[in-house]
C-alpha cells in the first residue's frame, strides 16, 4: 500500500517539477543482455534516473496450465521441469506434493531423503549461478559465473547419473521418486557437500569484500519488510528484508523437521542483503545435505499402492507449496475425479517477486535497474509459463 502511495507521489512530483527537456522512453528488452531471457521493461528516464518502469512479459507464454489440464497427472511432471529450468527437482517436488495432498498419498522414508538431497543440491546450484548472473549484470565479464558453473557442472553430472538428464530431470513422482540412488551416487553427493564450502570461501574471497560490489549493491533496491509481505515476496528476497519465513521451517514439508539448520535474515533488504542471504543459505543447505546423507535409510522409494498412470484423485482440491530456491513455489490443483486435473495452477515465485520491481527501481538509474532485476532472480520459463 505504502509503495503505491510513493509511486503516485513520485509521479505528481514529476509533473510538479516541470521537467526541463525530454524524458527518455526506453524499452529495455525483450532482447537485452541482462533481462534473463525475453523480458521487457518499459522505462521512462530523466537523464539516467528511472521515473517509471513497467514490466512486460509473456513472450515465453505457452499456457503451461492449459497443457497440464489436458494431460494426465503423470504427464504434467515433465512440464513442471520446464517452468524454472534451473531447478527442475524442486518444481517436481512442489507438484508431487500438491498431488500427494490431493490424493492422500504417503511417501516412503528413503524417497523423502532423496528428495531433500536433490532439492538442496538444486538450491546450491541455483544460488551459485544466480550470484554469477548478478555479477554478470554488474559487468564482471563472466568470471564469477564461470566459477559458479564449474561447481554447478558437478551437481548437474550428479543429476544426470541419477535421472538421465542434467536439467530436465523429471525425477519425482507422486508417492516417491522414479529411480533409486546407488551408494556410489550418495558418495559422490557427499563429495560435493564436503567440497562446496571451499568453493563458497573462494567465491566470497572474490566478491564479498569487493568495494565495487559493495558500492553497487548496498542501499540499492531496498525493500521494506512491510511491503515485501504485502506484495507476496517470498524466498531469499523476503528474508533479505528481515522477515523470518522459510517454508522448510514453517510448513516442515517432507522431513525438514529432522534437520537442524538456520535461516539467515537481512536487515536492509537491498541487493547486497539478497546476495549475502543466498550465500549464507548455501552454507545452510550444505549442512542439511550432510545430515541427510548421513541419515538416509534403506527402503522402498515409491509408494507401491499408488497408480502413476491413470491416477484418479477424489473430487476436491489442494494447494501444495514448497520453498523453492526462488521463493514459494505453489501448485493449486482441483480434481473432478477424472484422470487429469480440472484446474492446475502454478504460483510462480519469479513472477510474483516482480510485483515490486518498479517500487525498487524508481529514482535509481539504469545501471541499478539491471542489478535489481538480477537480484530478484527470475527465470522467464516460470514467469511466463
Amino acid at each position: 500500500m505504502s509503495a503505491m502511495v510513493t509511486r503516485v507521489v513520485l509521479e505528481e512530483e514529476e509533473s510538479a517539477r516541470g521537467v526541463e527537456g525530454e524524458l527518455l522512453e526506453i524499452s529495455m528488452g525483450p532482447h537485452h543482455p541482462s533481462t534473463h531471457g525475453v523480458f521487457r521493461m518499459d522505462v521512462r528516464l530523466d537523464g539516467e534516473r528511472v521515473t517509471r518502469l513497467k514490466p512486460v512479459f509473456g513472450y515465453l507464454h505457452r499456457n503451461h496450465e492449459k497443457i497440464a489440464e489436458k494431460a494426465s497427472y503423470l504427464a504434467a511432471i515433465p512440464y513442471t521441469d520446464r517452468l524454472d529450468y534451473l531447478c527442475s527437482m524442486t518444481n517436481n517436488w512442489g507438484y508431487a506434493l500438491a498431488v500427494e495432498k490431493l490424493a492422500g498419498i504417503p511417501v516412503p522414508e528413503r524417497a523423502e531423503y532423496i528428495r531433500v538431497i536433490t532439492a538442496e543440491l538444486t538450491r546450491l546450484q541455483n544460488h551459485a549461478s544466480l550470484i554469477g548472473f548478478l555479477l554478470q549484470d554488474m559487468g564482471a565479464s563472466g568470471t564469477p559465473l564461470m566459477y559458479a558453473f564449474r561447481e554447478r557442472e558437478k551437481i548437474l553430472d550428479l543429476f544426470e547419473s541419477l535421472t538421465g538428464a542434467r536439467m530436465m530431470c523429471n525425477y519425482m513422482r507422486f508417492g516417491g521418486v522414479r529411480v533409486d540412488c546407488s551408494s556410489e551416487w550418495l558418495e559422490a553427493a557427499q563429495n560435493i557437500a564436503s567440497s562446496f564450502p571451499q568453493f563458497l570461501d573462494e567465491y566470497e574471497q572474490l566478491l564479498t569484500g569487493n568495494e565495487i560490489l559493495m558500492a553497487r549493491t548496498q542501499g540499492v533496491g531496498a525493500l521494506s519488510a512491510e511491503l515485501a509481505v504485502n506484495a507476496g515476496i517470498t524466498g531469499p528476497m523476503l528474508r533479505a528484508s528481515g522477515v523470518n519465513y522459510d517454508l522448510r521451517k514453517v510448513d516442515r514439508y517432507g522431513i525438514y523437521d529432522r534437520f537442524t539448520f538456520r535461516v539467515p535474515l537481512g536487515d536492509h533488504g537491498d541487493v547486497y542483503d539478497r546476495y549475502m542471504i543466498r550465500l549464507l543459505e548455501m552454507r545452510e543447505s550444505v549442512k542439511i545435505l550432510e545430515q541427510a546423507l548421513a541419515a538416509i535409510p534403506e527402503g522402498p522409494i515409491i509408494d507401491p499402492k499408488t497408480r502413476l498412470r491413470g491416477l484418479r484423485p477424489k473430487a476436491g482440491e489442494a494447494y501444495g507449496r514448497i520453498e523453492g530456491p526462488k521463493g514459494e513455489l505453489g501448485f493449486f490443483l482441483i480434481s473432478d475425479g477424472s484422470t487429469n486435473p480440472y484446474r492446475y495452477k502454478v504460483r510462480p515465485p519469479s513472477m510474483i517477486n516482480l510485483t515490486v520491481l518498479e517500487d525498487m527501481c524508481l529514482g535509481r538509474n539504469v545501471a541499478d535497474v539491471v542489478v535489481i532485476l538480477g537480484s530478484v532472480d527470475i527465470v522467464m520459463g516460470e514467469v511466463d509459463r
Partner: protein
Amino acid sequence: MTQAISVEEIKAAMEAAVPGCRAEILRNESPSAQHSLLIDHEHAVNVAAFLRDDMALRLDFCSCVSGVDWPDREITEKVKVKKTVTTPEGEAQEQDVEETRKTMIPGFLEAVYHLFSIEKKHGPVVLRMRTVNRGGDARLPSLTPVWRSAEFQEREAFDLYGIVFEGHPDLRRILMWEGFADYPMRKDYVPPAEDDVEAVAK
C-alpha cells in the same frame, strides 16, 4: 501448516466484524481438507481487509490467486410425463410418455485466494469469489488494494479467464498480447488452427 483456526470460526469472526457480509463454507472432501469460504462481492474488500488486519488471524500474505472456469452444465434426465395424445382415430387419450428434460446450470468464473499468515505462521485459508455468469457480468471486486501480491495474479486471471477485477489499479493483459480477443484458459476456448498464422499473430 495445519489450519490453526477452523473455517467456521473464521466465518463467525468475519460476519461479526463486517456486518451484512454473507459467507458460505464450501467443504473440500479430498484428503487435503482445505475448506474454503465463498464470500459476496459487496463486502469482499472489507472482509479481506479484516482478515489481513485482525490480530488473531493476521492473514497478511496472499500467496496464490487462481481463476477457475466452471462452464454451463447441462443435466439431462429422463422423466415420465402424462400427456394427452390424439390417436389416429381422433380420440384424445392420456398416455405415459418418456421425455428427456434438460436443465441448465449456469456457469460462472471463480477466483480463489490462498491466504497465509507470515506473522502467525498458519494457513491456508481459502477465499473464493464467484461471478454472476461467464458472459458480460464476469466481474469481481479486486483484492489488490488489500494484498498487493494479487496484482499480477489478478491480471493473469483477467487475461486468461476474462474475470474483470473492479478496483484493480492496472488491469491489462499480462501474458497474452494486447488485442488478443479470447480467454485461453476457459474450458470452451478453441485454439486457432496451427497454420492459421494471422489468427495467432493478431
